[in-house]
């Protein structure tokens, strides 16, 4: 399950540091090992930060949709539920970015989603964002090195694909085609 690759990367002591349990003493070797570990996962953290940017964007879009008064009761339920999923993703990503020594990106002060004048506009926007997010996770999954981060990212990918499939159904798009990345 955990390969030599992981074992080389994580010292047992390093793992405890990763999960936030302070250690009594830090020798220069340990500090050096810790820096190496962070650098080794720098690419993972960069990917997580891109994902975090997409989560911020999705939350903003769903907020806009929910406040627009354009959605039906059922559509609103979906929008709120999916927004909550994205909030949870955001929190998970924040946690891992910080844990691995990164600085999480902030949401933009404003997003330009174009003119949204109907429920269909909102559904199309949500579909585009969800498909983009699913594609981003899918395209980058194999680049992730940390087992821990992969485990955190997989349930997020599962949610994004569920979301995009729901919107495909609502918009009358094919659900028998494979997601194109």
């Amino acid at each position, binding site marked *: *399950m*955990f*390969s030599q*690759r992981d074992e080389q990367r994580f010292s*047992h002591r390093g*793992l405890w540091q990763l*999960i936030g349990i302070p250690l009594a003493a830090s020798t220069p070797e340990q500090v050096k090992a810790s820096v190496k570990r962070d650098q080794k996962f720098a690419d993972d953290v960069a990917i997580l930060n891109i994902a975090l940017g997409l989560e911020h964007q999705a939350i903003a879009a769903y907020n806009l949709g929910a406040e627009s008064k354009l959605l039906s009761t059922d559509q609103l*339920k*979906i929008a709120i*539920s*999916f927004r909550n999923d994205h909030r949870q993703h955001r929190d998970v990503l924040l946690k891992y970015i910080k844990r691995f020594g990164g600085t999480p990106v902030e949401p933009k002060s404003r997003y330009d989603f174009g003119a949204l004048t109907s429920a269909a506009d909102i559904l199309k926007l949500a579909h585009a964002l969800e498909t983009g997010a*699913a594609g981003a*996770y*899918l395209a980058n*999954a*194999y*680049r992730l090195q940390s*087992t*821990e981060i*992969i*485990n955190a990212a*997989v*349930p997020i*990918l*599962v949610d994004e*694909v*569920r979301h995009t*499939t*729901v919107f495909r*159904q609502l918009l009358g798009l094919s*659900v*028998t085609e*494979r*997601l194109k*990345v």
Partner: protein
Amino acid sequence: MNTEELKALVSGGPSRRAVLKYLAAAAGAGAVGYLLNGRLRPVLGQSVDGDAGILTAALYLEHEAIAAYQAGVESKLLSEAAGKIAVAFQSDHKYHRDGISGAIRTLGGEPIEPEKRYRFGHIQTERDVLRLARRLEKGAVDAYATLAANIQNRDVLNFGAQALTDEVRHLTVLNSVLGFVNY
């Protein structure tokens, strides 16, 4: 699961029970076990020849799904719309089967064959077929999601992520058709 069982799983002739035990071991002994005592390896022996074990478990589930959709299509119980979905989803599972089989060969293994016969229980209505499909798709989602982080080879992980994506789409559609909420 001990080493002998793992060898049996990889070398062919696995039962559904062996596959499920494998998945349960992988899920239960994940990061938690490692974090607690750093002694994960004994739980899964030599990681079941690495990716080959994971791929073999996945291949078992793909064979099973293909057979289930085949049984559904041949049952004549499906409406035209449901039949189209079944054929399309079965085609995805065939694609996964072929990709996984190729990956196992690349890794020096021999892909397992489907079982001669599957027991899917009483299938008397379209809903029975769809419920069976949903149950298997859900199992596949859980399996891929659980095992993804254990995959070593990046190409295999990439393929697994794509298969997972298909299984989630299938599950979401079947949920809708059966009246389960997706949110």
